[in-house]
């Protein structure tokens, strides 16, 4: 069983060595076979150079690099990563250290024992939580989550999370169908997967938000979220 961790990167020159070290450590300690597929969108800070150094040190059997011509978006980055990945199971996660690879073995265990097709990390249940969010950020997140649950009844506590383990066939079938952008993108994957008959399990994770002051939640993101939510409400 080979696990492919797909890491889309944009200006992650500082974080990439750290996240790679943690992934390598986690999989080695858990005695699981892994590869990391780095999908870099021509980062201006030359993340590609760091990715190549990692590949040189750890070997091409562990590191695959997909270099794209520009900032082309998360959805197509996942698809490009999937095409290059050789694994039977795929981990999608953020490269900015907000997700800790130590939860991956727990996700694997969940998938093995309950035979679900997707295991999603959750910040809202099963002992999950966050660090670095003030009450306003928590309020926004809780409100958004409530609205999504009210409209979509997904049966999953964390709809917008991006730290998940998938059986490969799920992504191959579902990713090409995804239309939403931003946070709604992650929601759409779960909604369409469930409608296709795939099952979803959850594992509590800690989300460590270290990007203080650099808000990833401006008006634009909120508008895109509501648009995506409504799109899913009317088309699924």
């Amino acid at each position, binding site marked *: 069983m080979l696990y492919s961790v797909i890491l889309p990167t944009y200006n992650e020159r500082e974080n990439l060595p750290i996240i790679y070290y943690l992934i390598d450590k986690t999989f080695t300690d858990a005695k699981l076979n892994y590869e990391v597929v780095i999908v870099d969108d021509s980062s201006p800070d030359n993340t590609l150079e760091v990715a190549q150094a990692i590949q040189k040190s750890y070997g091409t059997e562990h590191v695959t690099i997909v270099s794209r011509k520009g900032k082309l978006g998360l959805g197509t980055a996942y698809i490009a990563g999937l095409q290059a990945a050789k694994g039977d199971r795929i981990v999608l996660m953020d490269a900015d250290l907000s997700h800790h690879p130590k939860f991956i073995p727990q996700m694997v265990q969940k998938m093995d024992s309950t035979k679900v097709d997707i295991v999603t990390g959750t910040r809202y249940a099963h002992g999950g939580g966050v660090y670095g969010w003030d009450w306003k950020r928590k309020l926004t997140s809780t409100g958004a989550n409530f609205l999504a649950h009210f409209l979509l009844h997904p049966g999953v506590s964390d709809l917008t999370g991006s730290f998940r383990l998938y059986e490969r066939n799920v992504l191959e079938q579902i990713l090409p169908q995804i239309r939403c952008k931003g946070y709604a993108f992650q929601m759409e994957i779960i909604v369409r997967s469930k409608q296709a008959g795939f099952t979803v399990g959850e594992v509590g994770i800690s989300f460590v938000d270290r990007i*203080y*002051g650099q808000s990833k939640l401006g008006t634009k993101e909120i508008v895109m979220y509501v648009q995506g939510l409504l799109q899913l409400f009317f088309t699924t």
Partner: protein
Amino acid sequence: MSLLHYQQFLVAGIVFLSIWYAALRQQEQQGDTTNNSIFITYAPVWLIAFLGVYAGSSVLYGTATFKDTPEAAKELEQQIKEAQEEMTKRGIIQQQQPTISKTK
């Protein structure tokens, strides 16, 4: 084939309105004999008020009980140092990196 989400809401809405209509008709015919008339007459208003209270209290409760994980942040800071050491040894990190920790 199952209904789309908005269709499920439409069906629920139609069911609710039908029951309400029937209750209003019955109330009209039987006269104002019970104390329930205010609930029946203004049922949609009560429903919206109930939903509003439910939504508001769920969100406030969820926000207040949102778990903080400071130990995760501490562990991460420690492991960042560990990672930097190893990756410098391997020549992946070339020189003294600026500190990654960003503070408020």
